[in-house]
């Protein structure tokens, strides 16, 4: 049922049960919000979104107040503006105010609000926050001094990621956000997904940077500095430079990376092709030998840590395959180094990822063999943007270049890894070929595409019916795994991506993406798949060559040693 309400003296349609904010948003009427998160229940705690109901002269929160017939809303009356201003002034009263040194300088909601409300003096003086900086984690840095207690991180961590490693601690002016028992992140249940960074309005949460080391390596003549970038980077980097979402700029990125000083540039999608070769072989093996099923993907390090903490009994279900990043890294420091006559110790291998958990993955002990790390440093999409700006590269004015070979060619199956459902689709293409010796007639599995949190499909391979599921957002993984454990659901193969929508919406991506950006990035990946001719990993000529000349067969000795790993139960506070 709908009725009319007045907003700023104009009648607009309001639907029963929705909030004032919902009704106004449909009409493009904006009020600032802070604690509000789209598609989640309102918490109504920050009061930034206050509007005045002229009917009773009361200030109400637009995000949590349902519309009522006869309402007369003023969004910018003087009382409203005064009230918003006071809220921001209070938030600033104990804030460090060191914008010039802040990671979020020029991309901060608190800056925006104080600018918007024209706050020009410090009216309310409070004691500056002075809480310890938490740099204990491998991926995230928490600076509680800058926290304005909006609670967005807490909600995402619990409701979207199903982790709940942080919460409000204490009360009143003593309130802070943090893991239980004031632990640091490294001993908490944090899975390093970075989704909390994505929603934090300030610089209280950010990724751990490795810039100083990277820059010294780039300037070290004894090191060969190589770089790989994940499938989703080329379709999301553009937004860091104010270009519309979904443009694929891989060849421009190649050129920019070389200008920065990376000597060799690779596409992690090649590593993804390798992952598919190994993972599809593992799946076929498990099905044929009656081994542990469902097999679950292991390319998302946020998910892997989640499983190690919350589902240790299911670790045998996880594929033993390393992730594309780590496979790529391992092959660079073995096969590629050999081909180019380089000493693996002299290679500094960098990975650019849409993800903060990849920083954690790269330093896992299992990812080092004989003192050689697969990957030495991981940068997020955002950090790549910073690096390009730091080196003064104008990406609008640069000639496209290709990646380096060997290891330079990728199939489009490797590319779609960046979207939730992509790994599964790519694996199905190759597993089908491994079982039947033939190619699928139709590569696209429609049911597994899109942004739904949980997707399922049934596939016929000869007389075998294979049940698969794809989940993204770890809270959805939790729901599905609980169903698998209580026998309600049965699958052969499950793909899990920690972040909602997969890597295209990873915790290392551009902050403040426009509406529809994630969809646009996803579409860009599938467009590439539509357009290109090599759509399967097993048809990638360089993959074939690598197996022939170096790896042997999937799951065999060399592959096993370089491309596979193991997991263990973690002792953290849950």
């Amino acid at each position: 049922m709908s009725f009319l309400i007045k907003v700023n003296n104009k009648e607009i349609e309001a639907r029963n049960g929705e909030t004032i904010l919902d009704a106004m948003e449909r009409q493009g009427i904006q009020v600032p919000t802070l604690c509000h998160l789209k598609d989640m229940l309102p918490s109504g705690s920050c009061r930034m979104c206050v509007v005045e109901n002229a009917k009773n002269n009361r200030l109400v929160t637009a995000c949590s107040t349902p519309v009522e017939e006869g309402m007369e809303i003023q969004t910018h009356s003087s009382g409203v503006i005064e009230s918003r201003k006071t809220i921001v002034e209070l938030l600033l009263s104990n804030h460090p105010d060191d914008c010039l040194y802040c990671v979020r300088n020029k991309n901060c909601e608190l800056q925006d609000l104080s600018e918007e409300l024209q706050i020009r003096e410090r009216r309310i003086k409070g004691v500056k926050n002075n809480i310890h900086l938490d740099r204990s984690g491998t991926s995230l840095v928490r600076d509680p001094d800058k926290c304005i207690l909006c609670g967005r991180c807490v909600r995402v961590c619990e409701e979207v990621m199903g982790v709940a490693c942080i919460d409000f601690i204490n009360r009143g002016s003593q309130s802070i956000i943090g893991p239980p028992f004031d632990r640091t992140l490294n001993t908490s249940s944090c899975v390093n997904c970075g989704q909390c960074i994505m929603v934090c309005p300030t610089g209280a949460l950010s990724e751990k940077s490795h810039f100083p080391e990277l820059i010294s390596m780039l300037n070290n003549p004894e090191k060969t500095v190589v770089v790989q970038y994940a499938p989703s980077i080329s379709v999301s980097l553009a937004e860091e430079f104010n270009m519309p979402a979904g443009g694929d700029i891989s060849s421009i990125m190649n050129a920019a990376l070389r200008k920065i000083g990376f000597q060799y540039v690779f596409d992690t999608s090649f590593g993804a092709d390798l992952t598919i070769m190994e993972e599809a072989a593992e799946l076929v093996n498990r099905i044929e030998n009656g081994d542990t099923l469902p097999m679950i993907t292991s390319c998302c390090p946020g998910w892997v840590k989640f499983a190690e903490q919350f589902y240790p009994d299911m670790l045998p279900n996880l594929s033993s395959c390393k992730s594309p990043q780590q496979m790529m890294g391992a092959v660079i420091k073995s096969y590629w180094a050999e081909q180019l006559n380089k000493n693996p110790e002299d290679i500094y291998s960098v990975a650019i990822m849409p993800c903060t958990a990849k920083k954690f993955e790269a330093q896992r002990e299992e990812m080092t063999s004989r003192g050689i790390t697969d990957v030495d440093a991981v940068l997020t999409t955002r950090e790549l943007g910073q690096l390009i700006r730091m080196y003064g590269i104008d990406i609008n004015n640069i000639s496209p270049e290709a990646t380096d070979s060997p290891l330079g060619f990728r199939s489009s199956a490797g590319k779609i890894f960046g979207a939730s459902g992509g790994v599964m689709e790519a694996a199905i293409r190759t597993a089908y070929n491994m079982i039947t010796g033939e190619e699928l007639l139709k590569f696209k599995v429609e049911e597994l595409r899109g942004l739904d949190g949980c997707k399922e499909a049934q596939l016929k391979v000869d007389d075998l019916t294979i049940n698969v599921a794809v989940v993204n957002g770890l809270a959805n993984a939790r729901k599905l795994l609980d169903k698998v454990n209580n026998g309600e659901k049965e699958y052969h193969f499950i793909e899990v991506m920690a972040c909602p929508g997969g890597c295209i919406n990873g915790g290392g991506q551009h902050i403040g993406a426009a509406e529809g950006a994630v969809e646009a990035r996803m579409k860009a990946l599938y467009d590439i798949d539509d357009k290109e001719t090599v759509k399967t990993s097993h048809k990638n000529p360089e993959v074939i060559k690598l197996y022939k000349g170096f790896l042997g067969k999937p799951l065999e000795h060399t592959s096993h040693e370089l491309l596979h790993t193991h997991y263990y139960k973690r002792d953290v506070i849950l």
Partner: protein
Amino acid sequence: MEKNIEAVLNKYPEGSVDNLIPILQDIQEVDGFLSEESVVKVGEYLNMPASKIYGVATFYNQFRFTPLGKYHIQVCCGTACHVLGSATVLEEIEKNLGVKSGQTAKDGIFSLEVVACIGACGLAPVISINGNFHAKVTSESIKEILDNYRNKE
């Protein structure tokens, strides 16, 4: 300690989140504080993350997270005590022991807690050590009182 927790949890067979506060109170009653171990156990029992329980528990002044010292000092900050300078008394004790309210000194001899009115307003400002009241304390007398307890060790 594990047994204590089990015994408390057994009193709440329905395992409902509504029982969280009484469960925590009961555990504190037996153990004197809420340990990480007990919070994790309660979490498993109620199917609640430790972060949530810690969040709730730190919201209330009544819960502590370190074991009590041999001598537990309660500083009354009720109205009468407040008016007669309990804040200075507290500050003095904190300085003397090197701990804040809710904490236990490293040597385990003293622990400190701020409490609301303990009903001895005539003695304000008053502190209680293991249940023994010390009346009309001053910054000067605090040192003597604490030293007396220290000397017993």
